[in-house]
């Protein structure tokens, strides 16, 4: 399906699950999906150079509109020729709308039909983030994919009325975002499917949003601490209601098991700060879960984080050495583990794509789960249930 500057070709489908492999052509790069997008909040991915990211193979990364709008600010980004130019990243970018940070970072924000009003963290002035403003900043940033401003509600909120209000407002805001969007020629605007954990509300939102002319969809309002049984049901409800020929971006998902399940449920794009955040705390991702490099058990382990990993960290450094660097709070240690973790996620997604192409995804899931959880007895029930719903029997 071609939409303006973007096209999504589904090149392979799993014959059992809803998983698919796609090629997403964006103005700055072609992205292989399913894809995990590392989060470079402030125009940089936690100490890694853009050359390192390219070398790992990263095709798309995230920037945060709220942060970038504050610093360096819309006008400097515009003067620089957009975020790609500003940060020296030639490949694809995606920005969020800023709405999530508004709610999570700012206690004093006030919500109205107009938008979110908040106190500017630096000069204490009152600022209004409206759908129009969010799009204006995102137009200045110039990412390949931009997000509508949505009315964000914590997924653990209990007031059903609030969800209904937020969902319907998000639909109205989507229309305002679509009208405000000035760069249809080179930026793709995604709506964000809301509806909390209420299936009928989500269906209503899906119905409304899929009736607009948009190039792809984000699934929002999840990964906020809700029960996993609710989470997967909302994901599968969402993908069922979305068109086959457009990409589906599930926001805020990054744990290996979640990625594997949600790919099986039909999602194509994911983002999460987890791999790089956990790296800074000395945690390395491996097929069996995580290794805490600050743990004394690593102190005399002179092997790399992962023997069969081809990242530059595993080629050059041992766990014992990383243990020493972390104990002394070396910033280089964070860079080393970030490289490994970003590579780990990249490799995981590549193996997922390969498995789908070979139509062996169900077997891939079984193998990966056994390695990760050691015994079927430790499989989380939500994962068993969700995979069961798409025809993969873990037990």
């Amino acid at each position, binding site marked *: 399906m071609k939409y303006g500057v973007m096209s999504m070709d589904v090149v392979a489908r799993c014959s059992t699950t809803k998983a698919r492999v796609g090629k997403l052509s964006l103005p700055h790069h072609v992205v292989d999906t399913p894809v995990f997008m590392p989060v470079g909040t*402030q*125009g*940089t991915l*936690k*100490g*890694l*150079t*853009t*050359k*390192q990211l390219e070398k790992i193979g990263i095709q798309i990364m995230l920037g945060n509109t709220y*942060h970038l709008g504050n*610093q*360096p600010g819309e006008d*400097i980004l515009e*003067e*620089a020729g957009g975020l790609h130019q*500003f*940060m*020296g990243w030639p490949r694809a970018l995606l920005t969020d709308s800023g709405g999530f940070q508004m709610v999570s970072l700012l206690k004093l924000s006030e919500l109205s039909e107009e938008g979110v009003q908040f106190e500017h963290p630096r000069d204490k002035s009152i600022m209004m983030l409206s759908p129009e403003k969010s799009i204006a900043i995102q137009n200045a940033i110039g990412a390949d994919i931009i997000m509508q401003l949505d009315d964000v509600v914590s997924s653990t909120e209990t007031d059903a009325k609030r969800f209904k209000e937020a969902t319907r407002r998000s639909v109205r805001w989507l229309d305002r975002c679509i009208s405000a969007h000035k760069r249809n020629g080179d930026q793709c605007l995604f709506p964000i499917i809301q509806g909390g954990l209420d299936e009928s509300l989500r269906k209503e939102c899906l119905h409304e949003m899929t009736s607009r002319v948009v190039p792809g969809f984000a699934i929002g309002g999840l990964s906020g601490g809700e029960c996993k049984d609710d989470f997967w049901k909302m994901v599968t409800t969402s993908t069922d209601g979305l068109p086959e020929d457009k990409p589906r971006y599930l926001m805020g998902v990054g744990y290996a098991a979640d990625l594997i399940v949600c790919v099986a449920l039909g999602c194509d794009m994911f983002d999460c700060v987890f791999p790089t955040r956990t790296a800074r705390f000395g945690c390395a991702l491996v097929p069996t879960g995580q290794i805490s490099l600050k743990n004394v058990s690593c*102190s*005399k382990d*002179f092997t790399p984080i992962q023997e069969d990993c081809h990242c*530059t*960290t595993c080629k*050059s*450094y*041992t766990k*014992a*050495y990383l*243990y*020493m*660097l972390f*104990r*002394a*709070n*070396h*910033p*280089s*240690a*964070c*860079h*080393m583990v970030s*490289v490994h973790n970003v590579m780990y996620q990249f490799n995981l997604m590549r193996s997922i794509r390969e498995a789908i192409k070979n139509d062996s995804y169900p077997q891939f899931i079984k193998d990966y789960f056994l390695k990760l959880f050691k015994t079927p007895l430790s499989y989380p029930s939500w994962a068993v249930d969700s995979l069961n719903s798409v025809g993969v029997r873990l037990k």
Partner: protein
Amino acid sequence: MKHKRLLYFSIKRFKSTVSNMSTECIKEKSQEKTLTFTRNEQVTHIGIPCCIMHTRTGCIPHLTEETLDYLDKKLIQNIYQVPLPSVIDYQDILEAANTNTLECLCMPNTSVLYATVQDFSCLPPSGYNTNKTVAVWGAGGKISVTPQSYMKLVEVLKPDIFQVLADGDVLKAESRKRIIKSVNRSVQYLDECIKHHQQSKPLENSKMICMIEGGNNLEERKRCMKLMLEKLKGHEDCVWGFGIDALPREKYISEGTKTVIKLLNDELPAGKPLLVHGFGHPLNIIDLIEDGVSVFDSTYVTELSESNHALVYGIPSIDSSLSLLNGDAKTNCSIVDVDVRKFVETIDISDSCFSRSFAPLVENCPCYTCVNHTRAYIQHLTVVNEMLAPVLLMLHNFHHHLTFFSALRNELNACSNLKSFKQKLIALNSMH
């Protein structure tokens, strides 16, 4: 260009008498301007003036092997400094590794390893040394090191060269009494370190760098040198060179400091390089070379990068500078006339005046940072305190600093003194 494996040293330079080790003296020895290290019968030459790469735990701050690889290999001198505070907590790990230190610290196995008592880019708090111990701050806090425990750690590290334990905690204007004490202690430590070294099998290929103390007191510097040379009688072979410790941290080195260095340079034995830590300002480096110092370190690069500063001064090169000389009458003024305060060597890149500057740190600089990023981007990274800011600054500052050292070596090879180089440097970089 990778250097070959090294295990022990043979010093082949500074053969002539070091009676007047000034620029003229370097001229006399212009054929031998390298330090030679030999390990497993394979030889590495390191050109002087040389810049030792400063590390913490064997890791260049903020860089990794991958990002260090962005630097021009021709600029890197394969000699690395490992400060004691950065490894003192890991003695058991180093022992358990059952390999050499380079392998354990994941460093290139061809590197020359130099162990120092302190990290000169972050000196410890003052006032914790005693007659018997030197205080070193590891990750877990203060550790008091005796000459014996120090030498045991050096035995674990098996460096190619190492500093002798010394009490250099006299950086601030200390009383004469405190300076005398620091000399007495350091001479005593030296005595014990020599004894240990003599009997140490693991250190048979490791050589010592004696740290001369005495603070800003010329008489004490002399006394320290004399006493140390007495202790070293008969052990000259185990000495690689001399370090001038506890020099004041001045932006421009003072006449007083120069007098100390000249004195030491005149009277220390021939064939042993003279070394200082922490200096990096281009004018200081030139002055120090003219006074006889030949070995420096890169702590300046670390310090600048960690305080958001970028090196921006122009480096004269032999071929391109002639036209500049002819075209600029200012270069004919004597160096004495130049007001060094007008010399601009760095910019503070966190300054908001760079927020819209879409030019590289230095125009036409071929380093990774300048090829790929603008001042505005780096300014942004410093404002939001992102970890990439010191990474990019390290890459640029390293490139710039090592290029300067390379230019100095070229200049000394070509014309044997730095007089005109210094004039050109000043002319290029003085605010009018």
